């Protein structure tokens, strides 16, 4: 490239209208075929999660004991399960559980981590000590053990019992809460560190000098600059939550009996491989593999796209 061309390009860049971090990230992601592909898979899973319940509303009673444990065929692409139900439908309904768990767990964890991280980073001192002590303590307990303990503690616990808002924590709701209260630590650590840095930047000092209150500074000036961390953590946390749901369901501590999920499918298929029935476990593992891979790749690309240091 000649010197003249390079100068010309710089001029073009400088005269281009300004773009926000978000707009820039979207533009860069849109240009990345891998990111687009992964995003399409995530959207597809999300659509399946929303529509599967409507598409197969009678799955639970779609039993046909004559067709138990049939291998894949044209009628049943992924074969049938122990009750003669379609494994394809079961896999799709499992996506609903996994996507919901991933979303709900992070809907609890990410805001919680964000809030605690900002509070700790902004106020420092005792609040910081308290938050750091709390997440260090929590992090020192092996995650899966704590998760199992929380799920056991939730057995037969119903919040707001006898009201219209009753939440039975024994089943899937308990899973949301357990995963949510276990998964905020990573977000909190990152946000706290970033807040410690941001709170001393000029624009925050200026806001303080202009008489802005603590809450306004935090939520108007600091939090918006941390949202990229929240988005990235949401994506990464999604993978963790899906995996944890599968593990807990495998251990019999996940979803309610009668709710199809990939974890229960894998659990149900433990004996299947020994006797040559591979379709149910392959379907569940394959579905999980695809979404976890897509989320991981998309999370990586999103982190790159939202990193201001990589902005052109």
């Amino acid at each position, binding site marked *: 490239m000649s010197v003249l061309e390079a100068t010309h390009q710089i001029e073009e860049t400088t005269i281009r209208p300004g773009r926000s971090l978000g707009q820039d990230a979207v533009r860069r992601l849109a240009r990345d075929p891998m990111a687009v592909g992964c995003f399409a898979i995530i959207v597809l899973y999300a659509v399946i999660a929303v529509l599967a319940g409507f598409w197969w509303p009678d799955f*639970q009673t779609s039993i046909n004991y004559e067709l138990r444990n049939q291998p894949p065929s044209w009628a049943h692409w992924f074969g049938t399960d122990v009750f003669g139900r379609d494994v394809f439908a079961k896999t799709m309904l499992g996506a609903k559980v996994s996507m919901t768990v991933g979303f709900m767990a992070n809907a609890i964890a990410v805001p919680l981590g964000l809030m605690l991280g900002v509070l700790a980073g902004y106020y420092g001192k005792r609040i910081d000590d308290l938050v750091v002590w709390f997440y260090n303590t929590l992090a020192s307990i092996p995650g899966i053990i704590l998760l199992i303990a929380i799920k056991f503690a939730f057995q*037969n616990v119903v919040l707001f019992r006898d009201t219209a808002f009753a939440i039975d924590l024994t089943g899937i709701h308990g899973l949301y809460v357990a995963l949510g209260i276990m998964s905020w630590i990573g977000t909190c650590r990152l946000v706290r560190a970033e807040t410690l840095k941001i709170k001393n930047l000029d624009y925050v000092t200026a806001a303080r000098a202009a008489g802005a209150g603590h809450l306004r500074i935090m939520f108007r000036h600091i939090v918006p600059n941390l949202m990229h961390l929240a988005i990235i953590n949401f994506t990464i946390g999604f993978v963790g939550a899906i995996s944890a749901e599968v593990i807990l369901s495998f251990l*019999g501590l996940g979803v309610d*009996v*009668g709710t199809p999920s990939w974890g229960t499918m894998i659990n149900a298929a433990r*004996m299947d491989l*020994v006797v040559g029935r591979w379709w149910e476990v392959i379907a569940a593992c394959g579905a999980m593999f695809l979404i976890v891979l897509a989320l991981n790749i998309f999370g990586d690309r999103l982190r790159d796209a939202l990193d201001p240091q990589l902005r052109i």
Partner: protein
Amino acid sequence: MLKVYIISLLIVLTLVFAPVLFLALRHEDRYAGKTVLYNSYSAKVRTIDPATCGDTTSAAMQGQVYESLYTYHYLKRPVELIPELAAAMPEVTADELVYTIRLKPDIRYARNPCFGQESDGRPKTREVRAEDFVLAIKRAADFHLQTSLAWSFLSDRIVGLDAYREQTSTYREGDFSRYDLEVDGVRALDALTLQITLVAPYPQLVYVLAMNTYAPIPRELVDYHLMTEPDGSGRRREIPMTRRTPQITGPEQMVGTGPYRLTIWDRGSRMVFERNPEYNHGFYPLEGEEGDAEAGLLENAGTPLPFIDVLYYECILEDLPSWLRFLSRQEDVGSIPPDAFSMVINPERALLDKWQEQGIRLVKFDYPAVFWLAFNMDDAVVGSSRALRQAMCLAFNVEDYIEVLSNGRGQRAVNILPRSFPTHEPAGPGPYYRYDPQAAQARLEQARQELAAAGHLEADGRIPEITIDIGGRDELFRRMGEFIQQQFEPIGIRVKIVLNDWPTLQQKVHNKQCQLYTMGWHADLPDAENFLQLFYGPNIEKGTNNTNYHNPDFDAAYDRIRSMRDSPEREKVYVDMIHMLNEDCPILLLSEPLVYLLVYDWVHNYKRHPFAYGTTKYLRLDLERRRMQGGR
């Protein structure tokens, strides 16, 4: 400084070689040269105390160590009661109230430190005495022991025993002087003569005395193991009364007369029994039923028992590892998991040739048990509407349940008694123990009216969601839960399934916290009364009536049969009582099990007994064949 180096070096060497030493002392070497049976059990052993035994797993393990006054002939069918520690069948007075039982002389307990020490350092033993049976019965009546099953057979039966139980409640738990109190109805006339005086005739008593729950307990066991503990210097010190527990809890406290003694009990992991050298009174039966000789079951007739030196049991709660261990010849006997059934058994219900060629044979047997879903009759919803219970019984396709979940291994239970019980046939099938969805809908309409009258319908007129507790957490129980949901959903009954481990379910049932739950009963003795007592009102308090069923007519009938001898009149009352249960439906009957067991051909003399525990002593192993076929 040198010392520090040396100590550090020693610590490092210890850490390095400890695992090597541990591996070197593994059980395979420890039992080298001995005949060892390898097997597994699939539920946790709850107790090793005979008085508190109430589940089949514990009973099976206890049967290796404890013996009773009577037992069952190993081979004869129908079952036949024979003396075990008793010298003969009891002498009964004409009024059938006084039983005099003479004991075999020179029956000795396994050696145990509680009897003292020989001059050569070995623990002593002693002869079994009648007073040991008196203590066993007193322990069964002890208020401070959880003896629900043992006590249910004796309460209101023996003169003075209920009063004794009352008295024990006034003692502190750790005060074992209560065992010195006299009970008029249970006395040792001399060292080898026991006398039991009844309140009213109790023809089932001999069967009850064949249960290991009343195995003799030497007083030395209480004085030594339950009242003292090692003080760390090789001697023993008294345990403060506040810390004493009346329950037998450790292997060293398990003092029995049986062919084995428990040497290792890693709770939830393994149990190892070794031959009791003092056992000298067991012999293989000389005769059996027709076909036993041809089946090779009389080859060891008259031979002293046991044939096996060590019973090595490992606790494996799940089917898959247990099945894989059997296939790799790590276990001598194995059951077939439902998922593997079709690869083992052909459509004609026989073992596939390829397994027979591997030296495996199939043993099929039914045992006198019935499984059911129990309604908690104290529950506001299922307890208050008979029509709801009837509808749920009619809506449940038990035939499919057996086929789908058990590969057809079982039969639909149609009344509370197993088919092997004589009263089963005249009692006939219950009108609601059949699959009829239309009739279920009709009963459901009636149920809605009953529930509406009782104020238990939801605001939108729906029947409230019903919670069903299941006593297991693994995949088989999850499937069972799903199947149950599938049965009730078509008639509009919403069901929530809660999976529990077995002890948790028992605790919930005990605390009356369940609405509907999985349960069953394995007969303790060949008499219908054993099943009917589960619904006798006064047994709610004793813990055996856990449906909380209370029907004054049923209770009155039960009071009548309590003291009746086997007769057509008694059978008629039994039938009436079963009809009451059939109509009230306090349980949703499921299945009578049929067991398919796989046994390697190096295991001889295997014949399943419907009631007796501790029959492993009759088994013989061909070690040479096991080794040749790749076994342990």
